[in-house]
């Protein structure tokens, strides 16, 4: 069985995608501009057909996802494919034109060759193109915005190509009368390339509502097609403008919303006449948050996810600190998971107070990144610094005393915070927690005792 999101399937799909585009360009071109030579280029067409026939067999053996679970047994996969796209794929791949040629020869259909008209069935392959693009959206590397742009551009370009082919075929099927657009544009005896250029030029000018008026309809069928293209053009124009605007904004959605937030905060600060120094600090903070987390708040983002999935992401995000922070190094996996779920991540700006002197301790702070200075609020005397992996705040919380010093972030500081409620809960549920804290603090007991001797309680 071939896995739906495997590398093999991806490579094969890439090849099929290219062949679909070749078919969708070549087949209508031949139908409109090369009627005189129905069999030219048939080798390429039938070679491509071979790939699509192989693709049908491969599709029967490709896994699919049902309710988020990959189904890989062959009968189910074949049934799944048969119910959806097998008929379309078979119709788009069978060389019906060749069968017709052998059985009845090249008859007439709508004023053109029957063989070439049957060949148009290959245009059904366009459905497979969208299936492939949808499948690629499931790949983690794919950018949904970019895929939408590709889908959109391919659709527009193919539509224009097909309309150009139909526009020329109208003149051809009617036998190029003097009042047909092709006769008036003097391209009846030109080569197919020149004819194609004129046709696509007219399609683009009409579709984009430019309409120079150098090529105009004169016959009923031409008027009808022109009207249809003009209608399509007008709607397409609105669609393009809307889609491009929404695509651009969705590609930069995170950045835009981040800057919008900064603008509204800055506007608020300006209205309240907050000093420029504080305003600069706020901007500095947002810049750091953008650099660090792309402006997203981890706590808010992950709250939407179910518990186990959130834990998996947290474990991945915290993989670097799990190795460095002593608290996690000494934990059992269950306690570690519980701590990760309960800890709140917060960033402090340079010079901001993390825990103030005189406050009652309500949380323990674990330093993930950055360093913290311990200072007396009134004298500004420094009592030393704490770095990555250190933690503080527990003395005040456990002893139930007010802090006797302030902790201040030296640079940008990322902390994990465990509040009193969670601390007590984890302590009650995991008797090993005290032991873990004991081992985590063992490395810096001297520093803690020096601080206590100086009367510093954090």
């Amino acid at each position, binding site marked *: 069985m071939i896995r739906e999101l495997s590398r093999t399937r991806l490579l094969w799909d890439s090849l099929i995608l290219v062949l679909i585009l070749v078919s969708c360009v070549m087949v209508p071109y031949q139908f409109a501009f090369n009627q005189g030579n129905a069999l030219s280029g048939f080798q390429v067409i039938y070679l491509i057909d071979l790939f699509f026939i192989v693709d049908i067999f491969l599709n029967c053996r490709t896994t699919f996802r049902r309710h988020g679970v990959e189904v890989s047994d062959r009968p189910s996969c074949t049934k799944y494919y048969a119910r959806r796209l097998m008929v379309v794929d078979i119709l788009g791949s069978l060389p019906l034109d060749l069968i017709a040629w052998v059985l009845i020869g090249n008859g007439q259909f709508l004023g053109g060759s029957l063989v070439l008209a049957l060949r148009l069935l290959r245009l059904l392959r366009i459905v497979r193109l969208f299936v492939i693009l949808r499948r690629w959206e499931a790949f983690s590397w794919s950018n949904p915005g970019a895929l939408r742009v590709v889908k959109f551009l391919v659709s527009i370009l193919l539509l224009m190509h097909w309309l150009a082919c139909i526009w020329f075929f109208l003149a051809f099927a009617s036998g190029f009368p003097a009042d047909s657009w092709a006769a008036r544009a003097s391209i009846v005896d030109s080569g197919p390339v020149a004819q194609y250029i004129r046709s696509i030029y007219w399609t683009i000018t009409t579709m984009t509502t430019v309409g120079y008026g150098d090529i105009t309809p004169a016959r009923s069928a031409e008027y009808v097609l022109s009207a249809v293209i003009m209608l399509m053009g007008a709607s397409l124009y609105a669609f393009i403008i809307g889609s491009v605007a929404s695509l651009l904004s969705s590609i930069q959605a995170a950045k835009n919303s981040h800057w919008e937030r900064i603008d509204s905060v800055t506007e608020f600060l300006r209205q309240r006449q907050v000093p420029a120094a504080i305003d600069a600090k706020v901007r500095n903070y947002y810049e750091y948050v953008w650099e660090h987390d792309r402006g997203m708040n981890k706590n808010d983002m992950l709250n939407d996810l179910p518990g186990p999935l959130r834990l998996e992401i947290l474990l991945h995000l915290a993989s670097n600190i799990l190795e460095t922070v002593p608290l996690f190094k000494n934990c059992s996996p269950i306690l570690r998971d519980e701590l990760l779920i309960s800890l709140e991540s917060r960033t402090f700006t340079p010079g901001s107070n993390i825990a103030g002197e005189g406050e009652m301790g309500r949380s323990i702070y674990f330093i993930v990144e950055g360093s913290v200075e311990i200072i007396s609020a009134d004298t500004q005397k420094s009592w030393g610094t704490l770095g990555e992996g250190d933690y503080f705040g527990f003395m005040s919380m456990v002893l139930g005393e007010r802090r006797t010093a302030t902790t201040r972030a030296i640079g940008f500081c990322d902390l994990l915070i465990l509040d009193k409620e969670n601390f007590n809960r984890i302590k009650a549920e995991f008797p090993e927690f005290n032991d873990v804290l*004991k081992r985590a603090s063992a490395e810096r*007991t001297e520093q803690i005792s020096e601080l206590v*001797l100086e009367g510093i309680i954090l």
Partner: protein
Amino acid sequence: MEISVTESGDVRILSFKGNLDTNTSPQAENEINGLIEAGAQKLLVNFENLDYISSAGLRILLATAKKLKASPGDLKICCLNETVQEVFDISGFATILSVSKTEEEALGAY
């Protein structure tokens, strides 16, 4: 807070009863300093009946341990109740102050 001092060989045993906080720590400090000045080098603090210890109490213990280590002498602590044990564990003091579960165990360790 009540402090009673008993002797077991050359070890002075201080038994604390009540709260060792900012208000009562000067009393405890005086008592301990008095014993050290009188020549006691081995002190055992029994916290069996201690209800609460504040940072001021911890400071006295740490200061005494430091003083006795330099003299040379030894400070041991025994019979911590749950709250006090927690403070000792989390702060890591349990590793720098010699803590025993019972008085006998502590006396045997000198």
